[in-house]
C-alpha cells in the first residue's frame, strides 16, 4: 500500500495526465461531473456523487459509429476508430464500479460491443472509498461495500492522505508509472485505514435505506410484479423525462440516429430513455403506449428482467442519484417500498 498527501494530488494528476487521459470529478458552473483533467480544472474529490455517473467514460452519452461521405452520387463509408489510447478514471465509488460490471454483462457478452470493449480495455479505474455516505445511498442493499471499493486501484482519503492500493495488473502498471510521487505506507497507516473503514460501515448502517428489503424481486417474480395494480398509482407523478436514466450508472439503452452534415451522414448512437414516448419507436408505432408501461419497464428491467438474465445480479447499484434528481421525487426505493407495503397489507 502507498500513500500520498492531499496537497500533492495535483502533481499526481499532472503526472498521470502526461501519459494518458485522466477523467475525474470536476466542478463546472456549480456542478460536479467526470471531466478530463486540465491544469486549471476544479477537481472535487470530496463530492460523494457526481451528477452523472462516470459511465460516460466507457459508454459516452453520444458517440459516432461511422461517417458516410457523399461525393456527387458516390458514397463512401468511414467507420469511427476504436479507442486506442489508455486512460484513467479516478475516484470512482464502489456503486459506480458495480455499475460498470452491469454494463459489462450487456456490452461484453456476445455480440461484443467493440466500442465499449475498446474503452474497457484501455481504461484503468482508480476507485475511491466513500468517506461520508449520504441518506440517499443504499448500495449495501445490493451487497456493495463502499468502504472497500474493488477496481484496478483502490484508494481511501483519510486525514489528508490518500491511501493507494493496486489490485490488478493495470493497477500495478499505473502505480509503477507514478511511483515516484507515492510513499510506502506503514503499519500505523494500515490501522488508520481499518479505523476509517469501520467508521464508514458504521455510518452505512445508520442510513435510512440500508434496511431496504429486496425480497421477492427476482427473475421468477415476472408475472406477479408485471400485473400488479401497484404500478397504476406509482407512475402517475412521472413526468416522462429522462433524468433518472441519464444520471443512472447502469442504464444502457441507446438510440441510433443519423445526422445530416450536408456532405453526408454521421451515424451516431446516443443514450435513450425508456421513459421517453418515442423509445423504441417503430414504423407501426410504439410497443409501450402509456407512461404506466414505460415506467414499469424501467423498474422491471432493473429488478426483474436483468437479474433473470444475469444470475440474479440486479441492475441497480443503490447510488441514489435518481432519488436525489427525480423532478417528481419518484425513485426505485419508493417502488420497492410500495410493493413491500402492498405485500404487507395482504
Amino acid at each position, binding site marked *: 500500500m502507498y500513500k500520498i498527501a492531499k496537497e500533492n494530488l495535483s502533481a499526481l494528476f499532472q503526472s498521470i495526465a502526461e501519459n494518458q487521459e485522466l477523467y475525474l470529478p470536476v466542478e463546472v*458552473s456549480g456542478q460536479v461531473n467526470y471531466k478530463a483533467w486540465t491544469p486549471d480544472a476544479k477537481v472535487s474529490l470530496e463530492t460523494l456523487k457526481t451528477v452523472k455517473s462516470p459511465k460516460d467514460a466507457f459508454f459516452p452519452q453520444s458517440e459516432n459509429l461511422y461517417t458516410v461521405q457523399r461525393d456527387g452520387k458516390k458514397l463512401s463509408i468511414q467507420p469511427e476508430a476504436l479507442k486506442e489510447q489508455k486512460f484513467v478514471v479516478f475516484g470512482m465509488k464502489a456503486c459506480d464500479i458495480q455499475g460498470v460490471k452491469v454494463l459489462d454483462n450487456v456490452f461484453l457478452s456476445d455480440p461484443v460491443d467493440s466500442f465499449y470493449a475498446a474503452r474497457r480495455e484501455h481504461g484503468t479505474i482508480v476507485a475511491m472509498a466513500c468517506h461520508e455516505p449520504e441518506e440517499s445511498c443504499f448500495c449495501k442493499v445490493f451487497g456493495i461495500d463502499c468502504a472497500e471499493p474493488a477496481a484496478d486501484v483502490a484508494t481511501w482519503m483519510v486525514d489528508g492522505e490518500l491511501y493507494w492500493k493496486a489490485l490488478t495488473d493495470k493497477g500495478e502498471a499505473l502505480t509503477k508509472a507514478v511511483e515516484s510521487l507515492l510513499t510506502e505506507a506503514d503499519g500505523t497507516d494500515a490501522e488508520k485505514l481499518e479505523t476509517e473503514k469501520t467508521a464508514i460501515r458504521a455510518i452505512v448502517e445508520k442510513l435510512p435505506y440500508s434496511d431496504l428489503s429486496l425480497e421477492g424481486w427476482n427473475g421468477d417474480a415476472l408475472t406477479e410484479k408485471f400485473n400488479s395494480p401497484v404500478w397504476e398509482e406509482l407512475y402517475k*407523478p412521472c413526468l416522462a423525462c429522462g433524468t433518472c436514466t441519464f*444520471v443512472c450508472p447502469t442504464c444502457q439503452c441507446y438510440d441510433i*440516429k443519423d445526422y445530416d452534415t450536408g456532405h453526408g451522414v454521421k451515424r451516431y448512437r446516443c443514450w435513450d430513455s425508456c421513459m421517453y414516448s418515442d423509445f423504441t419507436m417503430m414504423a407501426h408505432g410504439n410497443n409501450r403506449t402509456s407512461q404506466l408501461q414505460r415506467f414499469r419497464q424501467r423498474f422491471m428491467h432493473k429488478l426483474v428482467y436483468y437479474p433473470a438474465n444475469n444470475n440474479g445480479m440486479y441492475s441497480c447499484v443503490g447510488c441514489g442519484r435518481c432519488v436525489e434528481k427525480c423532478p417528481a421525487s419518484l425513485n426505485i426505493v419508493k417502488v420497492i417500498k410500495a410493493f413491500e407495503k402492498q405485500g404487507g397489507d395482504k
Partner: protein
Amino acid sequence: MQELINRAKELLADGTVARVLGWKAGDLPYNPEPAYFETEESLKDFVYNGFCGANLSKYMIEASKLEGKTMVCLKPCDTYSFNQLIKEHRVDRDKAYIVGVGCKGKLDIEKIKKQGIKGIQSIQGAEITDDAETLTIQTIYGEKTCAYKDGMLERCHVCKGKEHQIYDEIIGESKDTKDADRFDEVRRIEAMRPEEKFAFFQSELSKCIRCNACRNVCPACSCRKCVFDSNKFDSSQKANVDSFEEKMFHIIRAFHVAGRCTDCGECSRVCPQGIPLHLFNRKFIKDIDELYGEYQAGEDTDSKGPLTNFTFDDAEPSIVTERG
C-alpha cells in the same frame, strides 16, 4: 395542513370532487411527490410542507380528461400557470376545484445540501404551519441549521405575490417572499461582452444532459408531442454533443414559451445539472415588458399574448443592435 385534509375529505365525501391532487409524504424528509387521493383513507399520506414546490397545474391536463372534478392544490404562483392553460384550452376549468393553498416560500433541497449539509435524517421548520425562520436539520453527522431564506428556491426570492389568480377557495395564508429583482441576473448578463456571454452560456449549457426534465415539467410546454421529438422540423435529436444542439433546444424551447411562460421557475427547480434555465425565459419576459408593455402570462385567461399581438409602431429588430 390538517385544514386542507379536512376540506379534502369533505369534498370527497359530498361528491364535489372525485379525487384530490396534492402531495404525498415521501420516504425522506424532503421528497414529497405529487399524488392523487381518491379515498378519505388515502389522505393519511397527504402532506403539504415547504418541500411541496411542484407546480401541479400541468397534471390537470390529464386530470381534465378524467370523470368528475379534481380538487387541485395550487400555490399562488401555480395559479398563473393554470390560467394560461385555460387560455390555451389545455385544461378544463369545470373539471377543477381549485384550492388555493397558502405559501410562504418553498425550499430547495439542493440549496440546503450545497451548504454542506448531508446525511439528512429529519428537518424541522419546513412545516407550513409555523413561521420558522430557521430549519433545524438532524443528520448522521450531527445537528445543522439553515436559515429558511437560504434554503428557498430561487423563484421564491422573486415571488410574484401572495395573491391566487384563480381559485374556488383559499386555505392557509401566503406570504410575499420577494427580496430580489427577477431581472437582476439578466441585466448582469446583458452587460457582459459578447465573448463573456458566450462563455457563460457555453459553460452552463455544456452541463445539459438532454433529459428533458425542464421541458416535461413546464406547464407551458404542454405540447402533445414536442417538435424536438417529432420529425416535423428534422429536429429530432437526442445527442448531447456539447455544441449547437443544446443551444438550439434551449433557445427554441424558450421561444416557444415566450409570452406564455409565467416564470413559475419549475425548469430551474428540476434541472439535475442546476442550469439556471429561467435566465432564458426571463430574458424574453424582460424584452417583452420593455418593448411591448408589461405582460404577465397567466394573469388572466383571455388577453392576447405578446407574440400573437402587435402594434403598428412596434420596435424594429434593429433595436437589438442599436441599444448595444
